[in-house]
C-alpha cells in the first residue's frame, strides 16, 4: 500500500524533504514505515526515542496500523509559543 510521509523541523532537514511517498507491504504500522526510513536515512534514527507521530493529522502510537492512502507524520519535540 502507498502512504504519504511528512517530516517537520529538524527531521525535515535531516530527511532533505518535508514529504515523500512510500510503498509498504501490508499489514504495516507506523513502526514499519519508520524502520524502513531509518534504514534508508540512518541520521533519522536519533529521534527514535524523542519524537511524536501522527496518522492523518491525529496523534498516534508507533504500533498504529496503517491503511492505503494514510498520511504519517514524524514530529520532533515541539517548541511553539
Amino acid at each position, binding site marked *: 500500500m502507498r502512504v504519504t510521509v*511528512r517530516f*517537520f*523541523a*529538524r527531521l*525535515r*532537514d535531516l530527511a532533505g524533504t518535508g514529504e515523500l511517498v512510500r510503498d509498504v507491504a501490508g499489514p504495516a504500522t507506523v513502526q514499519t514505515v519508520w524502520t524502513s526510513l531509518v534504514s534508508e536515512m540512518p541520521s533519522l534514527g536519533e529521534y527514535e526515542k*524523542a*519524537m*511524536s507521530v*501522527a496518522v492523518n*493529522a*491525529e*496523534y498516534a502510537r508507533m504500533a498504529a496500523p496503517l491503511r492505503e492512502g494514510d498520511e504519517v*507524520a514524524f*514530529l*520532533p*519535540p*515541539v*517548541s*511553539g*509559543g
Partner: protein
Amino acid sequence: MVPLVAVGSAPLDLAALTTAVLTGSVPADAAAAQGTGDGAIASFAGLVRDHNLGRRVRFLEYEAYEPLAIRAMERIVEEARAAWPSARIGLHHRTGRLEIGEASIIIVAASAHRGDAFAACRYAIERVKQIVPIWKREHFEGGDVWLEGAVADPDDTAARQKAYKIACA
C-alpha cells in the same frame, strides 16, 4: 468572524481575539453570550526576544503541522473549559518569519472572576509548549538551530498535571 483558535502567517491581533472571546462563538451560557457574565479578561502574548542562551537572536522562523496544531489547540480549549468551567479561551499562533519584538502567540481568557481567567490563560500557554506541533528555528548571529522542547503526548497525564499546577500556583 475571528476564530477562537487559529494558526497562520498574518500578524496577530490581540484586540480582535479579545472581542471574539468576549462575544463567544461557543458561549458557555446565555449570560456569556451577551458578555454580561464576564468580570475578567487575562491575556498573554509571547514575543520574539533578541537573545537566547547567550546568543544574539536575529529573527525566528516558525513552522507548524497546521491541521494537527489546530486540533491540539482545540483540545487545550476543551481542557481549560473542563478545569475552569466559567472560563473561555482563545489562542492564535503565528507561523513564518518573525522579527524581534513581534508576537508569536496570543492567548485571551475570559471569566467571571480574575482567578479563573489568569489560571486558564497560564494553563493554555503551558499546554501549547507541551502538545502543539509547532517548531521555532532560531536564526542567531553565527548560525541557526531548531529549538526542541517537549515530546508531544496529549495523553501524558503527568504533563497535564504539571501544567495545571503551574496554572494554579
